[in-house]
């Protein structure tokens, strides 16, 4: 029998879950937790805004695939976390957010820094808890980790009133750590039917998403792709699950796909969706997505099957186990006619990069950065034009190499997620492609990067605009620009240096390539400012609500003349 406080019990349980690092910010209502954390072997990373702490934890979770933890106090601490929690929900990232709450007796009194964290997080969590006694933590903490990592992963909030943190409790035995439930296997008859549909198809395509990454199924996927000669497109979050240079890899589908990729999906007669949710940025107008195709949809979340597209065959199962079974069940195939057709589409309608050799071109800076990075580098992005250019042009070769905010599309994701990635994968360089709009949304985390001395380089595509907003106003609002240009242009290198972060400006040097290489090779955090022409757009583009066949721009001939 051991007597401890709720806070000490929480830390013991987190240690037993294998948590090595927690990002967070202390405040009035989580100080007992911080007092216990001081005595714990768990490392704490002090963020500069709770949203930063949430995204640092996300970066750790996205790189490792295991639940990561962030701490925040009650009231504004909790509300500041909300965006990072919602982001984790939409991208199915296992996250455990532990928030302080006012003492039980003060709940409902509008106490200082009281907010209904439980109520606020109902729609943005997989599950949430308001802990009512220290002893409850024995059930709640293992349950939180089990739920976060089971099935389709997601974020969990544990809201702990301050007096529960201080409550003494006698503990006989600590519970076993929470582990993911075994994922549901596919039914044999479903696998047989899916394999028969693949064997019978003349023009099959795989579309792979975050579920393949979450299931650690990249190797198995490759066996299926190679055996049955299956062309494979990815969603934004599926990038890297099949290496970019694999001959069957078609790259990203959807709003900013290469023309040929959307055209291949337009022509397919069988679409096998693996760990995807038919997001509108991927499908365009859903009713006209893959119009001639039968659909096999494999997902671990039953509510995704038929939510957007009614599948011919829906398989609610672990995508990894399903891929293993499918790889064994399909007949070997080479599909010469379909392979030739795809090769022709890709030759005639490739992704057109205007100036991939120019380091001050959007594609050029991404290609040059990729060329300098070692193969184990991790890439994060913010949200906007730079994100889409990077999705198109960065050569992703491994799952969990590419961390981006897909579903929520959160500007401000990139820098703190990069810090989290660097903390979780020490020794591996991390590059954050960002924009001048996005970076300012969590720029304070440069201080965290400096303090932790993480190997994170921000490559800032700076066009002094909210570039994707500007692009929408140009294309869909008659060129009536409003509120998309920043008239005050911050001196980003000076800002970085002010935070204690080294900085380079490719617009102010004679040899930008050499400077980029020098910056990326320097140890510790750094920022590389890259002036980009504000008139550059991301092409091709499917208008919002349009069908994927109706792409604007990005034709090969447009740049040939």
């Amino acid at each position: 029998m051991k007597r401890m406080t709720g806070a000490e019990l929480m830390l013991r349980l987190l240690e037993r879950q294998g948590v090595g690092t927690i990002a967070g910010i202390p405040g009035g209502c989580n100080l007992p937790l911080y007092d216990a954390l001081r005595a714990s072997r768990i490392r704490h990373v002090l963020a500069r805004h709770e949203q930063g702490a949430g995204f640092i934890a996300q970066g750790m979770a996205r790189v490792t695939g295991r639940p990561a933890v962030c701490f925040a106090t009650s009231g504004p601490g909790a509300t500041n976390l909300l965006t990072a929690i919602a982001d984790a929900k939409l991208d199915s990232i296992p996250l455990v957010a532990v928030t302080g709450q006012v003492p039980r007796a003060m709940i409902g009194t509008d106490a200082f820094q009281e907010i209904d964290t439980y109520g606020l997080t109902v729609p943005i969590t997989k599950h949430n808890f308001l802990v009512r006694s220290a002893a409850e933590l024995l059930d709640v903490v293992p349950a939180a980790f089990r739920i976060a990592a089971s099935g389709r992963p997601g974020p969990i909030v544990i809201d702990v009133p301050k007096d529960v943190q201080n409550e003494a409790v006698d503990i006989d035995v600590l519970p076993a750590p929470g582990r993911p439930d075994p994922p549901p296997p596919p039914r044999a008859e479903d696998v047989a039917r899916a394999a028969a549909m693949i064997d019978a198809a003349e023009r099959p395509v795989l579309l792979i998403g975050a579920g393949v990454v979450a299931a650690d199924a990249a190797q198995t996927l490759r066996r299926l792709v190679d055996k049955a000669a299956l062309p494979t497109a990815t969603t934004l979050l599926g990038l890297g699950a099949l290496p970019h240079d694999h001959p069957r890899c078609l790259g990203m589908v959807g709003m900013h796909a290469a023309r040929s990729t959307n055209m291949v999906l337009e022509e397919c007669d069988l679409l096998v969706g693996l760990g995807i949710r038919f997001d509108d940025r991927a499908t365009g107008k859903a009713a006209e997505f893959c119009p001639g195709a039968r659909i096999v949809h494999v997902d671990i979340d039953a509510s995704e099957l038929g939510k957007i597209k009614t599948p011919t065959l829906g398989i609610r199962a672990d995508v990894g186990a399903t891929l293993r079974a499918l790889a064994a069940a399909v007949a070997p195939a080479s599909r010469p006619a379909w392979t030739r057709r795809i090769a022709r589409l890709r030759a005639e309608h490739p992704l057109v990069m205007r100036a991939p050799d120019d380091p001050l071109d959007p594609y050029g800076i991404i290609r040059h950065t990729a060329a300098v990075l070692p193969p184990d580098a991790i890439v994060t992005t913010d949200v906007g034009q730079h994100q889409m250019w990077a999705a198109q042009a960065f050569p992703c070769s491994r799952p969990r190499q590419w961390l981006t905010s897909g579903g929520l599309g959160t500007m401000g994701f990139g820098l703190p997620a990069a810090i989290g990635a660097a903390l979780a994968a020490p020794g591996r360089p991390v590059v954050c492609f960002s924009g001048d709009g996005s970076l300012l949304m969590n720029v304070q985390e440069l201080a965290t990067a400096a303090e932790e001395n993480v190997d994170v380089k921000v490559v800032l595509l700076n066009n002094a605009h909210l570039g994707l907003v500007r692009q929408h106003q140009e294309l869909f609002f008659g060129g009536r620009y409003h509120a998309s240009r920043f008239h005050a242009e911050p001196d980003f290198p000076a800002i970085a240096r002010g935070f204690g972060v080294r900085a380079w400006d490719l617009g102010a040097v004679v040899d930008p390539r050499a400077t980029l290489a020098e910056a990326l090779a320097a140890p510790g955090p750094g920022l590389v400012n890259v002036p980009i022409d504000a008139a550059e757009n991301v092409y091709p583009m499917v208008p919002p609500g349009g069908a994927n066949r109706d792409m604007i721009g990005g034709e090969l001939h447009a740049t040939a003349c």
Partner: protein
Amino acid sequence: MRPHADVVLRLHVRNHPGVMSHVCGLFARRAFNVEGILCLPIEDATRSAILLLVHDDDRLDQMILQLRKLEDVLDVGRAHAARDAFAAVRPYL
């Protein structure tokens, strides 16, 4: 929009203060109107049964799948006979 028949869903849930907000939130944020709610503890009061009177529209199957994802919802089914329960409480409203 064509008029919809009403249908009753019966949920078995863990009985604690937050479960109703999880259930109702699913409907509210999809603008899916709930016509009637009845809720009582069952067994040893560790569980509750909730009857929801809802329109039988195209989204109902998706709603049921979403309800089944809720951690505190143990079971969801249709319960046609339970329509009478709503009629029975009417005199007390």
